[in-house]
């Protein structure tokens, strides 16, 4: 586990991003206060830019880079605001960082990245990665990711993470130098293989099941929501058509009306006002759906978090399995030793059979075998001990993090629902106001 050297940057002060964050429409997480890295530095993903360059196969490609800004906290509190340190990173580098964290801290529910490609889109939203709205939402998502990692009790102390924020050039090499890739590959292989644990831990099994259910239900929610947003958009847009026809109607009323009409009877003016109202009503849908999209992003984060949770459970299974395998290997080796020592064959082995068929071994051969077995058993016992420790540590670490995750999830989703409700309330109030204005106009007709 890499240790962070961030303690050297001794800056005092508390960033306390939470209140401002929660009010800002774009920021959607309640980041834990007072954890190591955020106490010392402010982190943000300030901008996004398009770049072109040659890729690995020497072909021209366009990609987006994101500007990560960091600023020591104390400077802000002193009133002076120095120019923040900054560097550019592309999405693939974020992915690399996350993969590193996944491998290095397998017991942690690692915060997810914003989606690579736009999914659950409804027709108005573009599924194009280059679309400015998508890029903007991704920028917010990446910032959120960094803040989540920076506020995690374990992850925040990682040096590679720190370097990600501060070292532009050499970072990639440094990551690969940790050799995590090899570990990653072997892990992936092992995880992909089918294996069955003899004594599954009930808590983890339940957690995995929860992860499955959460993923399924949030997917469904996002899908239905996207379809509903489509229809909702349609309703508003058609209302816009009223705008034109009421305007035209107003014009013919105006032409028809004579000067004898008394002051209160201005049908044409009322109709024109109605036309304007409908036009504004139709236009308001864009803002409404932008806010709804923000809600969808909050849900998406937890959709991906569910995956991370399931990954931890799966890794636990693997750890458990490896322990069980080691225990089983040890016990079979011990049995072999016993058989060899007592001369009884209780377990079938090809060697045993052949030696029976082709004659007994010499005492020297037997001695040699026994010695080898002893060594293997010693190693086996060490292995079991290590794996036991691994397993215990994993369980402890994982369970702590899962508890932390549960609290965070409950808190964040509750907040998301509250914002959603507030948004609906605001929309209803606007609607009432708009129609009341219209009614007032009609009453003068």
């Amino acid at each position, binding site marked *: 586990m890499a240790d962070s050297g961030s303690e050297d940057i001794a800056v005092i002060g508390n960033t306390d991003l939470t209140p401002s964050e929660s009010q800002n429409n774009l920021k959607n997480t309640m980041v834990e206060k007072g954890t190591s890295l955020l106490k010392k530095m402010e982190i943000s993903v300030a901008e996004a830019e398009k770049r072109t360059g040659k890729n690995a196969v020497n072909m021209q490609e366009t990609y987006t880079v994101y500007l990560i800004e960091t600023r020591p906290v104390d400077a802000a509190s002193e009133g002076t605001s120095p120019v923040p340190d900054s560097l550019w990173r592309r999405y693939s580098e974020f992915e690399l960082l996350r993969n590193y964290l996944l491998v290095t801290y397998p017991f942690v529910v690692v915060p997810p990245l914003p989606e690579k490609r736009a999914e659950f889109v409804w027709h108005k939203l573009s599924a194009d990665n280059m679309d400015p709205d998508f890029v903007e939402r991704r920028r917010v998502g990446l910032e959120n990711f960094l803040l989540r990692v920076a506020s995690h009790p374990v992850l925040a102390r990682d040096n590679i993470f720190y370097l990600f924020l501060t070292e532009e050039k050499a970072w990639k090499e440094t990551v690969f130098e940790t050799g995590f890739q090899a570990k990653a590959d072997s892990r992936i292989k092992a995880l992909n293989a089918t294996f069955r644990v003899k004594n599954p831990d009930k808590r983890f099994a339940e957690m995995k099941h929860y992860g499955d259910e959460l993923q399924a239900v949030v997917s469904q929610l996002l899908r239905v929501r996207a379809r509903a947003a489509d229809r909702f958009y349609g309703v508003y847009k058609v209302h816009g058509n009223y705008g034109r026809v009421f305007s035209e109607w107003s014009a013919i009323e105006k032409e028809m009306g004579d000067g004898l009409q008394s002051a209160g009877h201005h049908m044409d003016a009322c109709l024109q006002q109605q036309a304007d109202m409908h036009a504004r009503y139709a236009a308001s849908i864009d803002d409404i759906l932008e806010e709804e999209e923000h809600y969808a992003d909050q849900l998406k984060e937890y959709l991906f978090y569910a995956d991370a949770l399931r990954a931890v459970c799966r890794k636990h299974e693997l750890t458990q399995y490896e322990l069980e395998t080691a225990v089983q290997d040890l016990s079979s080796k011990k049995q072999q030793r016993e058989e060899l020592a007592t001369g009884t064959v209780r377990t079938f082995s090809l060697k045993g059979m052949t030696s029976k068929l082709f004659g007994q071994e010499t005492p020297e051969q037997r001695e040699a075998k026994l010695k080898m077995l002893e060594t293997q058993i010693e190693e086996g016992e060490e292995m079991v001990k290590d794996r036991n420790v691994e397993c215990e540590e994993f369980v402890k670490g994982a369970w702590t993090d899962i508890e932390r995750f549960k609290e965070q999830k409950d808190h964040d989703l509750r907040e998301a629902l509250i914002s959603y409700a507030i948004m609906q309330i605001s929309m*209803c109030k606007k609607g009432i106001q708009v129609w009341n204005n219209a009614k007032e106009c009609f009453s003068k007709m």
Partner: protein
Amino acid sequence: MSNGGTPRSLPSSGQKSIQEICHPLSAEESARSRSPDVLNPGEKDLSLPNGTPVDTSSPASSSSLLNRLQLDDDLDAETRDLFVTVDDPKKHVSTMETYITYRVCTKTTRTEFDLPEYSVRRRYQDFDWLRIKLEDSQPTHLIPPLPEKFVMKGVVDRFSEEFVETRRKALDKFLKRVADHPVLSFNEHFNAFLSAKDLNKRQGLALLTKMGESVKYVTGGYKLRGRPVEFAAMGEYLDMFTQKLGTIDRIAQRIIKEQTEFLMELREYGPVYSSWSSFEEDLHEPLEGVSGCVSNCSSALEELTEDMSEDFLPVLREYVLYIESMKNVLKKRDQVQAEYETKLEAVVFREDKKTPMPTDVEKCQDRVECFNADLKADWDRWQNNKRQDFRQLLTGMADKNIQYYEKCLAAWESLIPLLQDKQDAKGETN
């Protein structure tokens, strides 16, 4: 209504004799005597058979009286002396047919009626009879339209609650418009319709229809030289107005369609929150609450959409019929003018200037002027009604939308405390 008799002043005109009232159109001709012949009943021309008493009226009587009346919004309850309502639809099943009757209630202080109150049952046929009688007996006036007579049997259920209610409202409107008309409301057929136990209409029906047709088309075939600007403008306006209403109808239908599809998605959306809540602990109540909220909003939207279908659209469509009636009156007027112009031309060519104008040409001229005046007055009345009707319609639409939003607002607002509930408790532990 009685024939002849003492001059009777129409309501709201005070006790003045009609002749004292100046007709605005013929201000300079106020001295010109009117031939009472014009209004002799029974002729095959466009006179008022049993309408306004002969000696007291001038051809422009109805319009001048209209001008005396306050062309204000809703006639005050004090000035109105005839109230009519249509309600209580009932199904009647006989061996021959099944049909719906409506109760027609009348309250009045008019002396033309024997009783102050009446309650009779009428079916659509009877309303149609009345409309035809009115068209025949008051050809220079705009008769309000009836809702469509025929409905496609396979497509619309004639006995469904919605259809019957929509029709009832339209019939109610029809009678009210007649009752509010200063001339039509005194028509004897209208009186019979409101008061007679049994409408004795069968015998005269076929004959009357035929006569109606003859009245309609007797002046057909003449070419119109020049339509007065004001009538041309009316015609143009009506055409464009019809167009606009058609567009609004189409837009409203599209909105209904989109809203219905949106509603379908909402009905799926809410329950997902319920499913989610089933495997959450802390979030169980909040998610369940959101599900309930969405469900409430769905119901509110359903109501709003239904209202559009059942209230807004039918009234809009019926207005198109009203415009058609107005257009028909304009056409009739054109025909009367054409006949006059043609006859006049013939006379001018045929005889020298010394001979006085032949009577029938004079009659034509009077007819034209009478028609023009009546039509103008009816036009103003129509415009006024239109303004009121649309004010009511649009205000109704606004009200329904407000109700929808208020329901949704209440649902979401009640959710907030539920969502924040544990929040305060948790705030401590942080």
